[in-house]
C-alpha cells in the first residue's frame, strides 16, 4: 500500500511540476522497475524463477535558500529481494553552506561516497549498466553503506599559475546505521554462525580525493575509509562451533583436562562478541573521450576483529571468556567500458572480480575448514548491457552476466549448508529495468 501511495505521489508531483517550474522549491523524482532471472543459483530470493522484487523510487525537494545556503531532502524506497522491501527512508537530508569553491560544508544525512560510482547505486538513470560491478560495489553492502549522518566537507581547487587540472576532495565524518538485519550484519552473522542480538558502528571517517588531470577526460581517484563495528549475540549450536571447540582442545596437552572439557565445555548457544574495524582503500582511473568511457577501479578492505566467546561448563562456573583475533582481507576490482552510439542507444560492459579472502583465492581453506564449495572463494562476473533512451526522462536497460564463482550469493540468500549441493560454479544472470525520472 505504501508503495502504491509513494508511486502515486511521485507521478502526481511529476504532473503538477510542469505548472510549478517557477516556484522556489525544486522537485525531482524517479521510479524504476526491474526484473531479475538467474540460472543455476539464486542471485537474490526467487531469481531462479524470475523476480520483480527489484525496484527503486525517490522523490526530492530542494531550495537555494540564499546565495550561500542550499537545503534538500530525498525520500527513497527500494526492493531488492529480502532487502529494502519498499520501506521509505531518508536518502539524504542536508543543509549545504558554500564558503568558497574549495570549502563547502554539508550537515545532516548525506550519501556515502564510495569509489567513483558508489553513491549512484540508487540512480539507475545515469549509468549504462543495471548492476554496478560487484567486485568493488557488492550489492550485499547496499543497505549498510548508503547514507551517513554527520558532517561533510568538500570542495575543489584549480591552481591558477600552472595547469594541473582540478583537485577535489570530500571528507565525511558521521554515523552509519548498520543493524544486524543489514548486509554487513547478516554477512558477519553468517560468517561466524551467530544469532545476532546487537550490532552497531562507530563514527566513521571517509576521505575521497579526486584529480581531474590536465589530460582531457582523465581523472584519478583515491579513497580511505575507516569503520569501527561491533556485533554480538549467541552462537549457533552447530558443526561450525563444534569444530572450533575441537581445535581448542587439540592444543591442550593434559589428557584428563581435555577429556573433561570435551564432555563439559559448552560453545553452542553461548554469548559471543565481535569487535573491530574495517579499513577500506579504493583507487581508480576513469577516462572519457567523447562517447567512450573507460574505468578501472580496485578496492581492498582490511578487516581486523577480536572475537570474544563466553563458553559455559556443565554443572560448574563458566570459565573466563576467550578472545581470538581474526583478520581478513577482501579484494575487488573491475574494468568497465561504455560507448554511446546514438542519442537513444548506449552499450556497456565490464569484468569484475571479488575475493572475500585474499589468502584463500582458490577456496582450499573454505572447502577444508568450512566444508563449503570452493566457488565461494571468488566471483568473476562478465557483464554486457544495452541501454535504450526513449527520451531524457525514460530508458530501458537489458543486461546479461556470465558468472564464475558464488562468493556473494551466500550472504544475499542466507544460504544454509543444506542448499550448498545445489550451488553451481558457473551461472548466468539476466536483468532488465525501466527507469523514469523528472
Amino acid at each position, binding site marked *: 500500500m505504501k508503495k502504491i501511495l509513494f508511486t502515486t505521489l511521485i507521478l502526481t508531483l511529476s504532473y503538477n511540476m510542469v505548472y510549478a517550474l517557477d516556484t522556489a522549491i*525544486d522537485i*525531482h523524482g*524517479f521510479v524504476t522497475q526491474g526484473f531479475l532471472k538467474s540460472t543455476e543459483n539464486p542471485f537474490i530470493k526467487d531469481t531462479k524463477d524470475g523476480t520483480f522484487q527489484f525496484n527503486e523510487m*525517490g522523490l*526530492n525537494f*530542494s*531550495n*537555494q535558500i*540564499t*546565495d*550561500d545556503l*542550499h537545503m*534538500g531532502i*530525498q525520500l527513497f524506497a527500494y526492493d531488492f529481494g529480502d532487502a529494502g522491501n519498499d520501506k521509505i527512508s531518508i536518502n*539524504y537530508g*542536508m543543509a*549545504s553552506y*558554500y564558503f568558497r*569553491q574549495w570549502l563547502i560544508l*554539508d550537515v545532516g544525512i*548525506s*550519501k556515502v561516497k564510495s569509489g567513483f560510482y558508489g*553513491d*549512484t547505486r*540508487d*540512480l539507475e*538513470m*545515469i549509468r549504462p549498466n543495471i548492476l554496478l560491478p560487484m567486485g568493488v560495489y557488492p550489492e550485499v553492502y547496499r543497505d549498510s553503506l548508503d547514507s551517513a549522518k554527520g558532517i561533510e566537507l568538500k570542495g*575543489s581547487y*584549480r591552481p591558477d599559475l600552472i595547469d594541473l587540472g*582540478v583537485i*577535489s576532495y570530500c571528507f565525511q565524518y558521521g554515523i552509519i546505521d548498520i543493524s544486524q538485519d543489514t548486509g554487513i550484519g547478516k554477512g558477519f552473522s553468517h560468517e561466524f554462525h551467530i544469532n545476532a542480538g546487537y550490532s552497531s558502528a562507530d563514527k566513521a571517517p571517509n576521505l575521497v580525493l579526486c584529480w581531474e588531470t590536465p589530460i*582531457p*577526460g582523465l581523472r584519478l581517484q583515491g579513497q580511505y575509509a575507516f569503520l569501527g563495528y561491533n556485533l554480538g549475540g549467541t552462537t549457533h549450536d552447530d558443526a561450525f562451533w563444534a569444530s572450533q571447540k575441537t581445535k581448542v582442545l587439540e592444543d591442550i596437552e593434559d589428557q584428563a583436562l581435555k577429556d573433561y572439557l570435551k564432555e563439559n565445555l559448552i560453545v553452542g548457544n553461548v554469548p559471543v562478541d565481535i569487535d573491530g574495524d574495517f579499513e577500506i582503500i579504493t583507487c581508480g582511473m576513469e577516462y*572519457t573521450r*567523447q*562517447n567512450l568511457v573507460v574505468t578501472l577501479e580496485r578496492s581492498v578492505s582490511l578487516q581486523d576483529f577480536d572475537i570474544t566467546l563466553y563458553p559455559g561448563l556443565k554443572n560448574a562456573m563458566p570459565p573466563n571468556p576467550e578472545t581470538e583475533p581474526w583478520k581478513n582481507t577482501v579484494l575487488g576490482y573491475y574494468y568497465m567500458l561504455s560507448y*554511446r552510439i546514438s*542519442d537513444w542507444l548506449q552499450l556497456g560492459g565490464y569484468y569484475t572480480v571479488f575475493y572475500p579472502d585474499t589468502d584463500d583465492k582458490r577456496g582450499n581453506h573454505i572447502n577444508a575448514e568450512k566444508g563449503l564449495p570452493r566457488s565461494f572463494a571468488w566471483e568473476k562476473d562478465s557483464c554486457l548491457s544495452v541501454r535504450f*533512451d526513449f527520451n*531524457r526522462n525514460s530508458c530501458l536497460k537489458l543486461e546479461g552476466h556470465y558468472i564464475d564463482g558464488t562468493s556473494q550469493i551466500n550472504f544475499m540468500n542466507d544460504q544454509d549448508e543444506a542448499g550448498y549441493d545445489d550451488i553451481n560454479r558457473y551461472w548466468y544472470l539476466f536483468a532488465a529495468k525501466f527507469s523514469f*525520472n523528472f
Partner: protein
Amino acid sequence: MMHTKTPHLNSIMIPIAIWLVFGFAGIAKSQGPVFIGSPDIFESTLTKNDIKDIFMGKKKKWVGGKGITLTVNDQTDIEKTFTKAYLRKTPAQFINFWKYQIFVGNGNLPKFFTDENQLIDYIEKSEGAIGYISSDPPKEKKVKKFIIAD
C-alpha cells in the same frame, strides 16, 4: 614540361581554394557559443576554466559574492558545440552529470531553455545568471556579453 606541371598545380590549388572558402565558412559557422550574463555581474572576462567550473557546478558565486544562476540552451546544435568545446562532454553526459547532482543533493538543476529569446529574457531579468547563445544578443537587450580568455 610546363604543360604537365600547370594542370597538376591547378588540381591541387582548386580543392585548396574550395576548402579555404567553405572550410572557413564551416569553422565560422561552428564558432561560438556566445556567453551572456545578467547586467549586475561585475566580471566582464571569464576564462575557459571559469566556464567549465561554473557549468559543472564547482564555482557557485561571482566575485562580489552573488550566487550564480545557471541556464542551459537546450537547442541541439549549440548545446553540442558548447559541451564539447568547453566541458569536453557530450550533451548526454552533461545532462547525466546534473541528474547525478540533484539526486545526491548537490544543488539545483540549471534552468533549461529551448527558445533562445526566452533564455535571453530570463538572463536580462535575473540576478547573477549566465548562459550561452548561438550569436550576439540583440542590442536592445540589457545583457552582458562575456569576453572569453584562454
